């Protein structure tokens, strides 16, 4: 009992342990819910639901939302679940902290919230756009797709990192290093 308590209050686990747990979780999702764990589709549903509350007729005309129906379902609920799970874990770990500008960012680009938030919105927009273009994100393609030995998912995951490494190097060593 004490051991379990010690384990769940550790600041971090070995990445191999956390990763193995995620692998088991994906298998359980296929077993119990007949679907992969993918996070970007939850945001698609949330976006559609927000759109519907503003202009239902406009959302109904959009072809994409006829293919992926905006509703509160498994994929939608995954997102608030992740927020809750990470909150519980960070509180148990003693790691919960309100932060606007992360340390790595402020070391290179300073402490101005406006700059960090602006770049985060731009990055988020590219992620939302790119994840729908590619049909999935790091969890859907990178983990769940690769687990199914999907060639397309593995190629997509390589592209996530290729684009990410190139942009991170440009940002921190190119712009930030100058």
């Amino acid at each position, binding site marked *: 009992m004490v051991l379990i308590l010690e384990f769940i209050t*550790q600041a971090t686990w070995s*990445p191999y*342990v*956390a990763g193995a*747990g*995620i*692998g088991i*979780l*994906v*298998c359980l999702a296929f*077993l*119990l*819910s007949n679907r992969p764990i993918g996070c970007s589709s*939850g*945001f698609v549903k949330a976006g559609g639901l927000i759109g519907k509350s503003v202009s239902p007729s406009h959302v109904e005309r959009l072809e*994409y*939302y006829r293919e992926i129906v905006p509703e509160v*379902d*498994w994929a939608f*609920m995954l997102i*608030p679940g992740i*927020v*809750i799970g*990470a909150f519980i*874990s960070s509180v148990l*770990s003693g790691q919960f902290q309100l*932060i606007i500008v992360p340390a*790595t960012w402020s070391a290179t680009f300073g402490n101005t*919230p406006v700059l960090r938030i602006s*770049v985060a919105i*731009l*990055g*988020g927009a*590219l*992620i*939302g*756009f*790119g*994840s*729908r*273009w*590619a*049909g999935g*994100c*790091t969890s859907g393609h990178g*983990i769940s*797709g690769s687990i199914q030995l*999907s*060639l397309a*998912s593995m*190629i997509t*995951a390589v*592209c*996530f990192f*290729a*684009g*990410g490494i*190139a*942009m991170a190097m440009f*940002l921190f060593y190119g712009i930030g290093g100058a």
Partner: protein
Amino acid sequence: MGALFSGVHQDRRLQILLGLLFGIAFGFLLQKGGVTSYNVIIAQLLLTNFTVMKVMLSAVIVGMIGLALLKHFGYVQPHPAHGTLGSNVIGGLIFGLGFALLGYCPGTVAGAVGTGAVDALIGGVVGILLGIAIFVELYPKIRDRFLVKGPFPVVTVQEFLRINTWLSIIIMEAVMIGFLLLLEYLGF
């Protein structure tokens, strides 16, 4: 078979609850693995810390065997999707650029919100919803001009290598475990 949990699959209210529970477990593991941190993700993209790849590869190493066994005994029937150059490569690269600018992905951005990262909420979540809204508006044109272009000739690794499924799993597992051992050997 596959009928073992088909009643569960069709129970919509139960699936809504399961989505929440899977999310809680996933968010917990992401935070414990350290990958809800902007600093950890950027360090991965700058190739100075390999925590993100360690978490992802161990998930794939365990999940690939697990899913193959579940499939072998008839408990699940996964159906990986057909990809295209126009969709997976271009979309993947666009995503990658955003990945570095935001410092989170759609799963870890939700996790980061739970750990108190304000930039993940008012930057990341808002940006992702904005990007999706733009994509959804342009979807028919993007589909016709890009997403359907250059379909991959095969769906799975075993079809690509033209070998038996279990043999391809053994090869993939060996490559992934070998890569992780190499990282440890190099001191990452």
